[in-house]
C-alpha cells in the first residue's frame, strides 16, 4: 500500500503555488483495498484447478506505486504449457459440441460475474498495474464485462453472422496479452474465443498476472467446464513455449511489434492461424477550426490516459500552424492540473509507470529527445519518493526524424509537430511503419471524412479519442498487426470454415 506520507506529498504539491493553496487542497480520497485478498503465492490454473508449476521460476509481482511485493507468481515451463494445452484439448470436444445457446449462457455468466465483482477486480488491477482506480473502475472493468456480454450473444448466432461459410471453432487457442490493460485484454481475447467454441490457454504479462488469476475464480463461480480456460503465468520463455506448442490451432498476441514479428516468424510454415495487435505511433491532428478546449481534453486523454501505456495513444500531436501557440499554451496549463500519484486515490489522473524496465525505456527515449534538440516541458508536480513515476511530458520543436517522433515510447510523452495543409497532415500522419490509430479535430464534416479516408490506420477518432466498445472493431494496418478485435470482425479470426 502507498503510505500516507507519500499520498500527502503527492496531493500537497500537485497543484498550487498561490496563497490559497493550503485552504483549497483536496483531501486524499483513497479507495479501500480491504476488498481484495492477495495470496502470497499464486499458482497456475489448468484443467479447472490451481496447480503448482513444474517450472521452478518464480516472479515477484510488485505494486509499481510502492515497489512493495504483492505476490509471487510461478513461471510455467514447457511441461506446464503442455499440460495446459492438453487440458484445453480435452475440453475442446465437449465445449465445441455444447448447444451454442448453453455456451452463450456460460459467457453471459462470466460477464455478470465481472460486474458483480468489479470493484474487487478494479482495485486489484490498480494495485498490480499502477493505473488510476478512476480508470480501472470506470473503463477497464465495464468494458471487460461488456465484451463478454457482447460475444456471449454471438455464440448461438454464428450461422447468421457468417452466411454461406459454415463456421466451426478452431480448437485450442494460445493467447498472450500485455500489461497495460490486463483484464480488458483478457476479455478481448477470451470472450470471442469461447463464444466461437474454442478453448484457450492464456498467458498474462508477468508484471500483471493477478487479475487474470482472480478471473479463474470467476470461471469457478460460473461453473465453466474444466479446461475451457487455462491460465499459465510467466515471462517470455512461457510465451515462447505456448506459441511453439503443436497443439495450438491459433495464436492471438497483443504486445510489441518486435515480439509480434518474432511470433510471426516462429509460426512460418506451421499452417497455424495468427492475429497480432502490436504497437503504434498515432497522430492526433488538430485543425485551426477545431473546438479548441475539447481538442485539448482529447489530446490529454489521448496521451496521458493510462500513463501513455496505450498502443493506440495519440503520441504525435500535429497542430495546424496558425493555432499552435494558443493550443500549446492551453495544453501546458492543462498539464499543470493533472494529478500524478497514488493510483488508488480517486482523484489521480496519472498513476504509476508499470515497471522499472518500462520507466527506464521512457527515460532513455526522453533523453534522446532532449539530445536531438527537442524542447521539453513538464509541469511542476512532485513525485512520490518510492515507486515508478514519470511526469506528463510535452516535447515541442520536434522533427519528424527524431526518435521520439518515430518510436513507440509507451509512456506519458507527447511530441508536437505542426502542419499547414490537410495534405501535409496526412503525409506526416502516415509517415510511420505503424498504422493503428489516428485522431482528427475539426468542425468541418467533409474534412473529417477526407482525412479518415486517407489515414492508413485501423481506427480513426474524429473529435474524440481513445474510445473503445465491444461492437467496434479495433486493430492495425502495416506493422501495427493484422486481424481485428471487437465486433463481428473480431469473431472471424476464431473460426474456421466448412
Amino acid at each position, binding site marked *: 500500500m502507498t503510505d500516507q506520507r507519500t499520498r500527502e506529498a503527492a496531493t500537497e504539491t500537485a497543484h498550487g503555488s498561490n496563497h490559497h493553496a493550503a485552504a483549497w487542497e483536496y483531501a486524499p480520497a483513497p479507495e479501500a483495498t480491504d476488498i481484495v485478498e492477495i495470496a502470497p503465492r499464486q499458482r497456475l490454473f489448468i484443467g479447472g484447478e490451481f496447480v503448482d508449476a513444474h517450472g521452478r521460476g518464480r516472479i515477484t509481482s510488485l505494486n509499481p506505486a510502492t515497489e512493495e511485493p504483492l505476490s509471487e507468481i510461478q513461471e510455467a515451463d514447457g511441461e506446464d504449457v503442455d499440460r495446459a494445452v492438453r487440458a484445453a484439448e480435452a475440453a475442446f470436444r465437449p465445449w465445441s459440441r455444447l448447444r451454442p445457446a448453453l455456451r452463450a449462457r456460460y459467457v453471459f455468466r462470466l460477464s455478470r460475474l465481472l460486474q458483480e465483482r468489479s470493484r474487487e477486480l478494479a482495485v486489484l488491477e490498480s494495485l498490480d498495474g499502477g493505473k488510476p482506480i478512476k480508470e480501472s473502475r470506470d473503463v477497464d472493468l465495464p468494458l471487460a464485462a461488456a465484451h463478454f456480454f457482447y460475444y456471449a450473444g454471438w455464440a448461438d448466432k454464428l450461422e447468421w453472422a457468417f452466411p454461406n461459410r459454415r463456421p466451426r471453432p478452431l480448437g485450442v487457442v494460445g493467447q498472450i496479452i500485455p500489461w497495460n490493460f490486463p483484464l480488458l485484454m483478457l476479455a478481448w481475447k477470451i470472450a470471442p474465443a469461447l463464444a466461437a467454441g474454442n478453448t484457450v490457454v492464456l498467458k498474462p504479462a508477468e508484471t500483471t498476472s493477478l487479475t487474470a488469476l482472480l478471473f479463474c475464480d470467476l470461471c469457478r463461480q460460473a461453473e465453466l467446464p474444466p479446461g475451457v480456460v487455462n491460465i499459465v503465468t510467466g515471462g517470455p520463455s512461457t510465451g515462447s513455449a505456448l506459441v511453439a506448442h503443436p497443439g495450438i490451432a491459433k495464436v492471438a498476441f497483443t504486445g510489441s511489434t518486435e515480439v509480434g514479428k518474432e511470433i510471426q516468424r516462429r509460426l512460418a*510454415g506451421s499452417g497455424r492461424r495468427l492475429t497480432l495487435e502490436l504497437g503504434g505511433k498515432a497522430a492526433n491532428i488538430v485543425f485551426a477550426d477545431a473546438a479548441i478546449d475539447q481538442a485539448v481534453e482529447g489530446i490529454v486523454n489521448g496521451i496521458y490516459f493510462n500513463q501513455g501505456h496505450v498502443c493506440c495513444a495519440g503520441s504525435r500531436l500535429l497542430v495546424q500552424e496558425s493555432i499552435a501557440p494558443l493550443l500549446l499554451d492551453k495544453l501546458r496549463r492543462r498539464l499543470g492540473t493533472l494529478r500524478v500519484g497514488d493510483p488508488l486515490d480517486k482523484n489521480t489522473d496519472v498513476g504509476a509507470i508499470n515497471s522499472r524496465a518500462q520507466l527506464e525505456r521512457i527515460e532513455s527515449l526522453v533523453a534522446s529527445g532532449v539530445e536531438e534538440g527537442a524542447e521539453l516541458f513538464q509541469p511542476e508536480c512532485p513525485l512520490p519518493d518510492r515507486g515508478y513515476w514519470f511526469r506528463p511530458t510535452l516535447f515541442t520543436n520536434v522533427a519528424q526524424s527524431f526518435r521520439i517522433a518515430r518510436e513507440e515510447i509507451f509512456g506519458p510523452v507527447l511530441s508536437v509537430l505542426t502542419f499547414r495543409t490537410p495534405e501535409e497532415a496526412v503525409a506526416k500522419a502516415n509517415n510511420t511503419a505503424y498504422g493503428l490509430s489516428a485522431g482528427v479535430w475539426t468542425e468541418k464534416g467533409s474534412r473529417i471524412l477526407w482525412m479518415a479516408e486517407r489515414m492508413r490506420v485501423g481506427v*480513426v477518432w474524429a*473529435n474524440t479519442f481513445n474510445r473503445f466498445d465491444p461492437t467496434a*472493431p479495433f*486493430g492495425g494496418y502495416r*506493422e501495427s498487426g493484422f486481424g481485428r478485435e471487437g465486433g463481428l*470482425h473480431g469473431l472471424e479470426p476464431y473460426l474456421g470454415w466448412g
Partner: protein
Amino acid sequence: MDVRKTYKLYLNGAFVRSESQRTYEAQGMNVPRSTRKDVRDAVRAARAAFAGWSGRTAMNRGQVLYRAAEMLDARSAEVGRLEGVERGEVAQSVEALLWYAGLTDKLAQLGGTVNPVAGPYFTFSMPEPTGVVGIVAPERPALLGLVAPLAAVLSGGSTAVALASPALPLPALVLGEVLATSDLPAGAANLLTGRHREMLPTLAAHRDVNAVEVSGCDEEERRKVEEAAADSVTRVVATEPDQWLSPHTALAFMEVKTVWHPVGR
C-alpha cells in the same frame, strides 16, 4: 509463315523485357526471366499506382474489370489454344473477372458494419485496400490460378505484382495484353515471368509489399515467404481454389478501418 510474337513482361503499363535481358524457353517460346530488380521495379510501379487505383470509385473499378472480361473473352480462342490451358479455363477466367467486376461495389456492404456502441457516438467500420499485393500463381491452372486472385486483389483497390506460372508463362503474358487494353491504370497490375526462386525472396521480404498471396507456393516456399514476411508484418494469404469466387478472398486483401464521431447538438 506466321508472324512470331516476342512475349514481354507487363510492367508499369508497358511491355518490356527483363532488365537483365535474360530469357528462358517455355511453351516453345523465349520468355523473359525476371530478376530481383524487375521485382523491385514492379513493386515501385504498383506502389505508385496504388493511390490512383484505390482512389477510383468502386463502380469504376468494376467497369475496368468488366472491360478486362470483355477483352479476354474476345481472345478466348487464341488463349485457349495455348499449351497447358485447360478446357473451359478461359471461360472460367472470364467468369472470374465478371464475378469480381460485380463485387467491387458490394465489398463495403459485405465487409463493413455500423457499430452500435454504448455511447453517444456514430461509429462505422469499412474495408479498405491493403496496398501492394504480391501474387504467386500456381503452376496450373496457369491462367485461372492467376486471374482469380488478381481479380480479387484489384476488386478491392489494391495493386499487384504477380509471378506467373514458371512452366506455363504465356497465358499470363497474354493476360497482360488483355489488361493493357482494359483501361487499367499503368502499374495497377504487373506480371512477371521467370523462376520463382529468383524472385520470391525479394518479393516476400520487400518492406513495401503489404500482403502476399501464396497459393502457388509449395510448402517450403510458403514457409520461407512467411518467415520473410514477418520482418514487416506482411499479411500472408493462401486462397484455395474453392474460394476463387468469394468476397472473403477480396476482403483478405483489405484492412478494416473503424471511424468514430460524437453525436451531439
